[in-house]
């Protein structure tokens, strides 16, 4: 079975801003980290992979087939779950309602699909326990939750639907140290169980600790791809701000295997 997941020559511009240009990445199994300065195009790439935005050019290959991800529903059918930078939670809805937003469990009453609150509450229970961040009662509206708890809700949503590919956009940006370590251990378990994780982050030490492969973006382009054991915080930062120029310098092996 071909489990390849990659993007080829993706380009995307917003009214004058070239957000992505000629982006080609093979997402190996395990955790691929994407790093880069603000505005480098990281979130844009994640949104394209999750069907929220559409590329101007380029292809996405999933399980060996070229796919068109027109909308988030298609992404999910392909097994691609996302945890967005802004979390995309509906504040006045409770924890369970947010977990199942757009995918509510229904039962038929007289032929009419009716929300099955009990089934959803039961199904949510185990997953909420797995995210390891103490949550208040699951019927609490999420606007009463702390940043870490909201994060846990968004993660539980991605976990529940058993992703083949999990996209994380700055998942630990709003978390304290305790919550971050709880979060990373859940992600490590997921990676061990075979989920392919793509994580955007500004936390360079975390990247070096967790990632199996690191992609550096700058101004909409891929400027380097390195393995964590072959690089350092200084080198990654240099790539990000552009004081170390080309891909060749960074990783000759990568160029060889990807041409």
């Amino acid at each position, binding site marked *: 079975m071909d489990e390849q997941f990659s993007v080829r020559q993706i380009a995307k511009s917003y009214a004058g801003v070239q957000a992505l240009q000629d982006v080609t990445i093979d997402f190996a199994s395990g955790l691929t980290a994407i790093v880069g300065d603000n505005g480098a195009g990281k979130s844009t790439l994640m949104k394209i992979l999750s069907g929220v935005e559409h590329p101007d050019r380029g292809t996405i290959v999933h399980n060996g087939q070229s796919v068109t991800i027109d909308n988030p529903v298609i992404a999910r059918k392909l097994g691609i779950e996302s945890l967005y930078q802004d979390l995309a939670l509906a504040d006045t809805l409770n924890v369970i309602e947010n977990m199942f937003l757009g995918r*509510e469990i229904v039962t038929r009453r007289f032929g009419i699909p009716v*929300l099955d609150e009990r089934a959803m509450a039961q199904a949510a229970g185990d997953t909420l326990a797995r995210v390891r961040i103490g949550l208040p009662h699951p019927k609490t509206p999420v606007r009463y939750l702390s940043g870490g708890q909201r994060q846990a809700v968004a993660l539980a949503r991605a976990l529940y639907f058993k992703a083949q590919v999990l996209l994380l956009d700055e998942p630990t940006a709003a978390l304290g140290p305790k919550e971050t370590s709880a979060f990373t251990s859940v992600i490590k378990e997921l990676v061990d169980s075979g989920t392919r994780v793509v994580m955007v982050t500004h936390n360079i030490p975390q990247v070096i600790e967790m990632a199996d492969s690191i992609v550096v973006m700058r101004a909409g382009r891929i400027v380097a791809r390195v393995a964590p054991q072959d690089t350092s915080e200084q080198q990654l930062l240099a790539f990000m701000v552009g004081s170390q120029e080309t891909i060749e310098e960074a990783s000759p092996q990568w160029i060889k295997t990807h041409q």
Partner: protein
Amino acid sequence: MDQNTSVRHSGRKFQWALRGRVTILFVLVLFVVFFGVTARGFFTKISLENIMVSTALFLLLSLGETYVMISGGIDLSVSSMLALSGMVSGVYISSTYHGTGPAIGITLIALALSLVLGLAGGTFNGLIIANLKLNPLIVTLGTWGVFYGGAELIANGSPVGNLTPFSYVLGNGGPLVGWVVWITLAFVIAYAWIARRTRFGRYIFAVGANREAVRRAGVNLKRQSVGVYALAGLGAGAAGFLSMAHFQTASPVAGSDYLLIAVAAVIIGGTPLTGGEGSIWGTVVGALIISVLENGFVMLNISAFWQLVAVGLTTILAVYFDEIQRHFQIAQAARRNTA
């Protein structure tokens, strides 16, 4: 295991949904007691029936308005849809009924006509708002003019009377509280049920809270919008028929007094202008508060001017208390989270 208990441990059950409603229910009781004591005859059958019928007619506008406002929009055209649908079915009745028998068939066709027209008008609103991505306030202000203009054209300048006996029965007869109130109650139950028990209803709240989240959840936002405004139109259509049947006249300016109080009922009932929350039952209580005020003032022989002032002040106070309560709840939640 360990994590499991941490989830259950903090599982104190909060009656979130109830909190807001208890306060306004209390306000309603307060007003009822006040007028019960001060206004002679307030607790008579005729007075209470009066309150219920006058509530019913504009409550039918408030139900759909609740949906619209929970999802973060506003519909100013509901009163004009009432006028247009009442006018069309009035003209239909007067041109087909020739004064023999109760004319049940004609009356029911007129009712269907009103409902279809309201639904069509609301769908029209929804299609424009969803497809052209225009501000609902502007769009429905525009269609307010279109629908009232249409009603004037159809009326050709004068109201229509001379309706069927069966329409009189629907508008003024019926067991106990009368058909108008029963029909409205059926609408209330249906709208409350849809809001709480269906996906469509869930998305009404979600769209008001975070439109982008709903889009990313893969929900068809256009269909959602059209559905919400269509249901606002349907209620207006029902109100159009029932007010025609109740007053036994179809007027091109019918319902012009209702827009303000229909929106006020939604706000008093706890739906914030920012959307995301609210409830049909809250709106029902809000509408009852307004009717009790209006009818109580009439019984105390206080001028209509003061009724308006009182409704206005109640609306402002309701918003104010809602705001205080929200701040209190957020502060409380923050304390719980840091504890």
